[in-house]
């Protein structure tokens, strides 16, 4: 069993808007200079899904490879994949990969997957928190000609199939696909395990494998189907009117009265 997990390095999505900056020329969002990037949250969860599958196999029978395309990798951050239990970490680094062009990223990931000899299962996050596209895994599946199941909170390999529990907006759907397949993971799956100290120390000593666009034979072919013309931060602020009372319960009562008085809410007749 060979599982490839795609990881994207992103600016921490919990950075307050006031601490973000836009690099106008490169149409990029920058975090504060002293804060490290993170592995996209859903991708960590995809890694967790892979590690849970690996636990079902005997030692050496299931291999988990983490794969990332990007630029300016923070190795301490990316090596957390090793610490958590990935067998290999493959980084494709090139400034050209810092792009809005999903199709280019997808062609790069597909080429790398082929270079790695393919996979039985490709696990991805449901979306990356920088551009919120939720596109790459679906396009990757199309390009590789693989079935794709999305929004999994549980992923189970059963012989030649993968079974997932999908979280829909109104319930749960269980779906199955033939292997090899692409599966995207959602937050209900749970957090990536926190590795013990020993694993973290060992991970620090390990080296990622690197691949170049040239080796993979991938080039950006402009004009891209979608170009970013402009990027700006949104500061949605309202003047908050604080409701204060003699006690917190009193403030709650005053708040309700204010909303009723303003015609915003209406008490229902019992």
């Amino acid at each position, binding site marked *: 069993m060979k599982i490839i997990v795609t990881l994207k390095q992103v600016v921490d999505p919990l950075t307050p808007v006031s601490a973000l900056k836009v690099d106008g020329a490169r149409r990029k969002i920058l975090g504060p200079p002293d804060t490290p990037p993170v592995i996209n949250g859903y991708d960590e969860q995809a890694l967790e899904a892979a590690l849970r599958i690996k636990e079902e196999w005997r030692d050496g029978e299931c291999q988990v490879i983490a794969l990332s395309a990007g630029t300016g990798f923070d190795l301490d951050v990316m090596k957390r994949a090793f610490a958590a239990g990935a067998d290999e970490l493959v980084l494709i680094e090139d400034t050209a990969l810092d792009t809005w062009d999903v199709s280019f990223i997808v062609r790069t990931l597909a080429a790398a997957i082929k270079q790695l000899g393919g996979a039985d299962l490709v696990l991805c996050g449901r979306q990356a928190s920088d551009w919120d596209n939720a596109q790459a895994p679906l396009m990757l599946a199309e390009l590789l000609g693989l079935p794709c199941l999305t929004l999994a909170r549980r992923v189970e390999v059963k012989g030649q199939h993968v079974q997932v529990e999908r979280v829909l907006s109104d319930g749960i759907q269980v779906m199955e696909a033939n292997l090899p397949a692409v599966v995207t993971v959602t937050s209900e799956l749970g957090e990536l395990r926190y590795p013990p100290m020993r694993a973290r120390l060992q991970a620090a000593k390990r080296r990622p494998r690197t691949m170049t666009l040239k080796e993979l034979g991938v080039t950006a072919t402009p004009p891209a189907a979608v170009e970013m013309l402009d990027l700006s931060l949104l500061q*949605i602020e309202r003047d908050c009117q604080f409701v204060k009372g003699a006690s917190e319960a009193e403030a*709650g009562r005053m708040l309700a009265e204010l909303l009723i008085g303003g015609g915003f809410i209406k008490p229902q007749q019992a």
Partner: protein
Amino acid sequence: MSGILIFAETDDGTILPNFWEQVSAARQVADPLGGGLRVAVQGSQIKDASDALKSGAEQVYVTNDARLGEPWSEAHLETFTALCRELQPELIILPRTLLGMEIAARLAQRLDAGLAQDVMTMQLAEGKLTVTRPVFGGAASATLRLTRPPWIIVPRTGAFAPAEPLSTPKGELVARQANLVDDALKTRRISRTRQTSKINLERARVIISGGRGLGGPEPFQLLHEIAERMGAVVGASRPPCDSGWVDSGMQVGLTGKTVSPEVYIAVGISGATQHMTGCSSSRVIVAINQDPDAPIFRMATYGVVGDWKQVLPGFCEALA
């Protein structure tokens, strides 16, 4: 390549209300684009396909098939791709639902089309389509140019006011076959469990949402009680959904539902951009949070700094 094709998603055989927002987006560019409007309705036991003619479409293609009665993306995608290949539309508009977003991405790869998800505004000039959309969890806005057709767009829920249905539609209904070969499909449905009560957050007038600050599933009972007293619907931020305190269908935000009620009351929610992007167009936002520095107070109209355990009983009493 010419004209506009709308994918009308159905649920239980009924076209989703998103359809009229898609029509509104289509009407914005229909004149300069030319080529007319067509609609694809896919589902099982479709009841109201003729309503789609009131969009002004020349043809409404109706594909009725038991396998299209669920958000099974492969079945829908294969069916819709065949139609797109036949009609060669210049612009394709899908609804911002889990199914719509997924078909959009895979179709973009199949048709080598430019795709923009979560579109707020749209403009056509000199043969190029320019759109704006939020990115980075709603912290920023990007202006994108879709360089060459075909174009695929997924309008943000609520960004385009629903279009007015025409009183005298002129178009025709065209029945189609799904042409799905079960053995050729690579994915299979095993089962589906739906929530018994259909809560419609997207169209609610008043919403009261709970966050991680509620500390567990039980306090949501109190939210339901309060909601009942003021005719509201209960929502949640992501942590209560991830922790299984409440159904994931209640999640508001970037990866949950986009809502725009008259009043949005957030209890024990810090106000992360990924949550606020789902409710920022509410007319009034009310925050109850014990931390005076919580970011939500910068986006709220009214706020109470305090422990919900004290504040909510007072609030509830005033509704009696």
